[in-house]
């Protein structure tokens, strides 16, 4: 008898499965369907939340600063920003600020 013949003739036989094996596995599959996936961990959840927050802030800032398309509105925005940088745009709006505003508005509108 050759080695292969011997090994095949005396092939090890697995013990019989438990009678309810199929049902047990089917129940486990059903249970797993509603369980939290393995890849879901606390760290990943926090990372995903942080990434989503950054994305929302970024998108909001983009939308908020988007030009309106109205040239007068845009000119007003540019002048306001410029005056703010010059620190002459007081809370009550002084003459100097008003003068600066008009001068700049005229420049921008040209």
């Amino acid at each position, binding site marked *: 008898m050759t080695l292969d013949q*011997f090994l095949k*003739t005396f*092939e*090890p036989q697995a013990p019989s499965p438990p009678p309810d094996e*199929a049902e047990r596995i*089917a129940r486990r599959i059903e249970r*797993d369907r509603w369980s939290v996936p393995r890849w879901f961990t606390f760290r990943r959840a926090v990372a995903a939340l942080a990434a989503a927050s950054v994305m929302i802030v970024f998108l909001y800032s983009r939308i908020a600063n988007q030009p309106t398309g109205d040239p007068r509105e845009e000119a007003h925005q540019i002048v306001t920003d410029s005056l703010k940088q010059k620190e002459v745009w007081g809370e009550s709006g002084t003459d100097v600020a008003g003068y600066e505003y008009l001068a700049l508005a005229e420049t921008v509108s040209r």
Partner: protein
Amino acid sequence: MPTEEAGSDFPLLYERYRGLVRGVLFKLCGPSDLDDLVQEAFLRIWKGSPGFDRRSAFRTWVYAIVTHLAADHFRRKGRRPSLAAVDPDSQRGTGGDDGAVNRDLVRRGLLQLSEEHRTALVLHLYEGLSVEEISEATASKAGTVKSRLHYARLAMAQFLESQGVNV
């Protein structure tokens, strides 16, 4: 459920592949943890079948799942299946007849092989897979599989000889 091969329901999948899964896992891992391993194998097959890409036969894919599961099992345990894991009654040969004694010898011989050698020999000899199919299931080159088969046979012959069996 995913593929036509796997069937539309779990009982069908189980009926088709229970013999294959249980038989291969028994030869690769021994009797301890066998029921748990079979359950884990079917879970992986069931969950993984939606992603089955049909590049290979479904049966070959099932062999790949089972052999990977056996490899994971050894890694988790950090050892190969020891003879201590074998039922002591069967080691003595139940009933004392030659068939049972020789079957037990073969099983012990298989468990003494390295994981790769045992996998190659079991898939080729008992499951009838070709070298190409084994290389696909184990993600190894055909030459490597041939070499593993050669050394597995050599080791089995030496083991059997050491136990007084000349083949």
